[in-house]
């Protein structure tokens, strides 16, 4: 009885000391998960998730304060990737966030007054121009975040969906009938 108590007490003291020491000594600083999540996000920096950019959203997901289904540009595929990364279940988009076709901004150059407001709004510096000069969007750099649309005082920016061309066209996943008699006319 006494020996059992002594033995258990001694073991507990030793192990507890080791634990307490290790907890301080090997504390992990920073969170590598944020970078992993950030790598999955589409980097449109659009803020549609309610966070001011992709990295803040990634941080929020890593901390568990944000859901994974708030990123419309990432599409359902993006949610799947996040779910895989975090080991959680897939969630469909929430009520307000709906994925849209991938688009780029187009400035109607005849209406543009050169106010530079859109330039200030663009998170990736994809709009060039100077004050009182016509602005234009570098289509290749535009992420389609739409952040430039609301500030424009003359509504000269429109979002043009990126069209299918032979350049970005993709071969389809083969779909075939297992039983041709059912599908063939």
């Amino acid at each position, binding site marked *: 009885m006494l020996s059992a108590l002594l033995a258990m007490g001694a073991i507990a003291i030793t192990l507890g000391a080791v634990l307490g020491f290790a907890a301080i000594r090997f504390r992990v600083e920073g969170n590598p998960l944020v970078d992993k999540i950030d790598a999955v996000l589409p980097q449109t920096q659009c803020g549609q998730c309610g966070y001011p950019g992709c990295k803040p959203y990634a941080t929020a997901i890593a901390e568990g304060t944000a859901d994974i289904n708030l990123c419309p540009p990432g599409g359902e595929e993006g949610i799947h990737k996040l779910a895989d990364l975090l080991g959680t279940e897939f969630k469909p988009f929430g009520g307000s966030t709906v994925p849209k076709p991938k688009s780029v901004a187009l400035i109607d150059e*005849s209406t543009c*007054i050169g106010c530079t407001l859109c330039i200030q709004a663009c998170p990736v510096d*994809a709009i060039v121009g100077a004050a009182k000069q016509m602005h234009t969007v570098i289509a290749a750099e535009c992420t389609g975040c739409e952040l430039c649309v609301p500030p424009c005082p003359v509504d000269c920016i429109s979002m*043009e969906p*990126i069209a299918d061309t032979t350049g970005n066209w*993709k071969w389809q996943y083969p779909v*075939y*009938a297992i039983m041709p008699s059912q599908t063939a006319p």
Partner: protein
Amino acid sequence: MRKLHTFHGGVHPATCKTQSNGSPIAKAKLPSKLVIPLRQHVGHSARTTVEVGERVRKGQIIGQADGHVSSAVHASTSGTISAIGMQPVAHPSGLPEPCITLIPDGLDEWMELEPCEDWKAVPHSELRHRLRNAGVVGLGGAVFPSDMKLYAHKHKIKTLVLNGAECEPYITCDDLLMRERAEEVLKGAELMRELLYADEVLIGIEDNKPEAIAAMRDAAGKHSGMEVIAVPTIYPGGGAKQLIRVLTGIEVAAGVRSTDLGVQCFNVGTAYSAWRAIRFGEPLISRIVTVTGNVESPQNFEALIGMPIAELIAQAGNLPGTTGLIMGGPMMGVLLPSDKAGVVKATNCIIAASDALFPPPRPVLPCIRCTRCADACPAELQPQDLYWFARAKNFTKAEEYHLFDCIECGACSYVCPSNIPLVQYYRFAKSEIWAQQAGQKAADAARERHEFRESRLERDKREKAEKLAAKEKAAARSEPAPVSDKPDTKPQDEIARKIQAAIDQAKAQAAEVKPKNTEQLTPQQMAEIAEIEARRARIREIAQASTDAQPRE
């Protein structure tokens, strides 16, 4: 006798070549119109140099090579440009591409050509330039600009391989070309050898074309260091990698330039075109096309580039029961979404398909891992594994198993007892991976730009604060700081007022019927405006096309 090597796998489909190789090459009649795509080659689209309504002569450049990897496009006959715009092209997607429509005037009037008797005296760079301007690209199907391939960089090219193997069933255009124009093919080879400083020229022809071999051997007698070699008939023995392997024993992996290994390979048709381009100054405006399958008289035509495929088929004689048109052979060809598209430089063969010739596919069963595909794969891949990964969309794994070494020859699908469209899965996986890579690249760039912007804003803020602090310091030293902040608000009001004025003006402008002030503009400005307009129009058109395309998916 040269020791031939073998490559792994391969299949022996029925060759079906006798239908079309019995009669000589016929000249296709002038079509009612020509639809000439601006991009018929690997690389950048050519830039239009003509305008609608302009009259052009045969051989005139209508599209200038644009960018490093590009090639010129020419008027195939004389006539009038009737349209420049998006048209369906010979592409499996059925999506349109920029094309120039030319209405022939029937005169077939050549422009002045620049023949060159003594091409050996011309510097190599000039020769390459001429080939580029003549629009010479690989005619075996890859359509890579030939001038780029005819530059050895720093490598010592030992062997120039001329590909006359033509392993795909049905196709006989190279066969006929070699039979009828062997001499000019070999002169082209001579030119290529010169440009590459190659030691030897090996011409590989499959042994099911004895006439072509005989003709070429006959002609090769006049050249030194050229050897015509009969290679065993096996599909895909005419693939560049496979032919190089058979003739030299060298294996060129995907992503490796064959010149790094001292070999370069050209199609016999390319050699012929290169010769015509240099010696006679003739640009590539026609090519030999096998028209076969479900037509009255299968034969080879010399057809103008841009000739609508429907008209070409009609010249061989339409037959009822045609279910579709295949461009290329039955193993790797593309099912054409439209017969309105024009013949392009890659069009070596048009097969009119019918249910009798190409029965509808049998039901697909699951893969039983029988490895007949692996036994047939000339790239020595494990198609059954690749199929599994592609089907599961496990692209990382597919790449790890060397998906990109797949040459899409179709040997695996051909032998599959479960009738699985294997190649289609590989194409799907490849294009998904490409799209992913492009997306990743764009995302990385966006992240970088965003981070740069953030740091820039940060820096600006800091600098501003520093400046302000310095100013205040200076002000504090000289005189008391101004109490009111009026001077700050005033300019802001000013700015807002100005902006409002500009907005009003812009709105008024937009409301006006004539939106642009087109008077007193320099021609340069006008051109710029026109270009902007064109760009806008194109973007709208693309957008329109995509919205049109939506329901199709």
